[in-house]
């Protein structure tokens, strides 16, 4: 856990003036969560982060890391117990990847065999073959590969707390998304307490359990991504998040959150009258046709079979597209728009039909937050 209590930083400028880079910042990053420090350039994100490991001496306030007051710790020991990733990656060009990863374990005097073995394991964790990369030098790696090594280097001594200053800033958007996903997957297992600086809203929404929005050194709002997007505390935050902030919430919800899981379905051999009855009973205009194992195969529309006879297989249409239950709503909505449809069949990883999702259900889910707020206000 990281706790900041009325933390302030005042820089003296050469001209004799002062800059307040952090102004009475109080916040808490709970154990095992990622907190993203977000805000426009120069708002004090980096300054706040660097005060935590003492790279920038604080002017005022208190910092507790893992329950201990940092004023009472030797800064060198404190830093060895905190993983640190910088935007420029900062791998040491004179050391092999292996030695780079083992910098902190070596400083801590760990057994070399143990730390070298760990370096190999960590490389595998980010999909880099230790056989190839352990003995390479940083200049022999691509930008994305270097960035991965930068991250696992911070994890080498297994610190409970990580500080990351725009850790994925130096790579192209496609690679960045891949590394973000890898990192989130890793975080599910390692559960580090992380303070993460970013100036990219989408990255913040994706990575954060909590987002801290800064402006001119002040902490303006500290809440979960969904809460922040749904209820920005003031106009500055609202405009910083963008007028499309409601759409951004789509990526926070997954298809399974709003999927109508009712299992009505027909098979190819069923009679169309059965399909008709099921649709009328459920009040649906469409019904999905599944194969013998339960995989989504197609659908029939109520109007198409209003007054025909025969079996479903003679009247069904192919599904224009399906969506995975693990996808986010952004993907679902984008598919709906692309195929000009108001509903999608949802399938699991193996293609089994799980339910369906409608535009109405999505807008209902997004609106729920606002309605709750209105109810609370009305009471």
């Amino acid at each position, binding site marked *: 856990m990281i706790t900041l209590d009325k933390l302030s930083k005042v820089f003296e400028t050469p001209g004799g003036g002062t800059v307040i880079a952090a102004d009475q910042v109080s916040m808490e990053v709970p154990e095992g969560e990622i907190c993203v420090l977000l805000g426009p350039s120069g708002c004090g994100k980096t300054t706040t982060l*660097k005060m935590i*490991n003492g*790279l920038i001496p604080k002017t005022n306030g208190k910092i507790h890391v893992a329950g201990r007051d940092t004023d009472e710790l030797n800064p*060198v*020991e*404190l*830093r*060895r*117990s905190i993983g*640190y990733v*910088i935007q*420029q990656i*900062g791998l*040491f*060009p*004179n*050391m*092999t990847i292996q030695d780079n990863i083992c*910098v*902190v374990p070596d*400083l801590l005097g760990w057994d070399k065999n143990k730390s070298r073995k760990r370096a190999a394991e960590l490389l595998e964790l980010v999909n880099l073959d230790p056989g190839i990369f352990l003995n390479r*030098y*940083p*200049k022999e790696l691509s930008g994305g590969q270097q960035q991965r090594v930068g991250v696992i280097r911070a994890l080498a001594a297994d610190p409970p707390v990580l*500080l990351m200053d725009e850790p994925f800033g130096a790579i192209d958007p496609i690679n960045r998304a891949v590394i973000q996903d890898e990192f989130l997957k890793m975080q599910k297992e390692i559960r580090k307490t992380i303070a993460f600086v970013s100036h990219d809203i989408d990255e913040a929404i994706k990575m954060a359990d909590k987002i801290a929005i800064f402006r001119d050194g002040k902490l303006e709002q500290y809440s979960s991504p969904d809460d922040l997007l749904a209820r920005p505390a003031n106009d500055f935050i609202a405009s910083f998040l963008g007028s499309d902030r409601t759409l951004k919430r789509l990526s926070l919800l997954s298809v399974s959150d709003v999927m109508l899981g009712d299992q009505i379905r027909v098979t190819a051999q069923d009679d169309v009258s059965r399909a008709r009855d099921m649709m009328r009973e459920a009040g649906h205009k469409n019904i999905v046709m599944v194969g013998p194992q339960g995989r989504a195969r197609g659908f029939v529309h109520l109007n198409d079979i209003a007054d025909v006879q025969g079996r479903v297989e003679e009247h069904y249409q192919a599904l224009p597209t399906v969506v995975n239950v693990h996808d986010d709503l952004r993907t679902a909505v984008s598919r709906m728009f692309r195929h000009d449809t108001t509903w999608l069949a949802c399938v699991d990883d193996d293609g089994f039909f799980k339910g369906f999702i409608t535009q109405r259900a999505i807008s209902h889910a997004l609106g729920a937050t606002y309605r709750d707020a209105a109810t609370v206000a009305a009471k």
Partner: protein
Amino acid sequence: MSIKDTLKQDNIRTRIAFVIGLVFGVGLMAGEQGFLGDIWRYYSEDIIYLAKQHVILVLVSSGLAILVGVPAGIWLSRDWMARYSETALQIFNIGTTIPTLAILALSITLLGIGFTPAVFGLWVATLLPIVRNVYQGLREVPAYLKEAATGMGMTPRHILLSVELPNALYVIFAGVRTAVAVNVGTVPLAFLIGGGGLGELIFTGIDLNDPQMLLAGAIPVALLSMLADFLLAKAQYWLIPRGVNPLR
């Protein structure tokens, strides 16, 4: 075999060919005209004796220059010296514009004549490029590397030894190479202030208008400087880790 290995081998082959060619050339001249052979016959004792002096002058003066220049460069590059280091380097730069002969002459006024003033003069001439390159090399290590190192819990000493110096090594080595080249080129002048060395044969040869004697000094001097640079180039290639060595 990678392209790099092939290039490396080619490189080595050209050098070997060069040395063999040189030996052959020398042998031919010695055999057919007997010219170099004569020189060797007349002057071998002098050459060996003076070359020893010569090499000692080089080793002692440049060794001392490295011993003093590297710490001085490190010291100037520290943050707390930032206010003075630019001035100090300006003075050093002015120092390099003084002809070495003048430095040698000046050292006579301080230390008289003989081995010591010669070493001193050479030391001064050699010191400048070393200090300058050590300083520059260390200053050029990116600030973010030092910050990453500090943030990971390295002490200033650790940072100097395992981040700054290794990353400045190539530039430092380049300084040492330049310095030694200057040094070897200047050592013949040491004779003029009583320091000995192969300069004795060269200058006496000039005085007596005796080209054989002159060559007896000049050829070994040329070979020695080639050898020195060759050895340093090899050292630069092999001692500097691959990650920070643009040659590898």
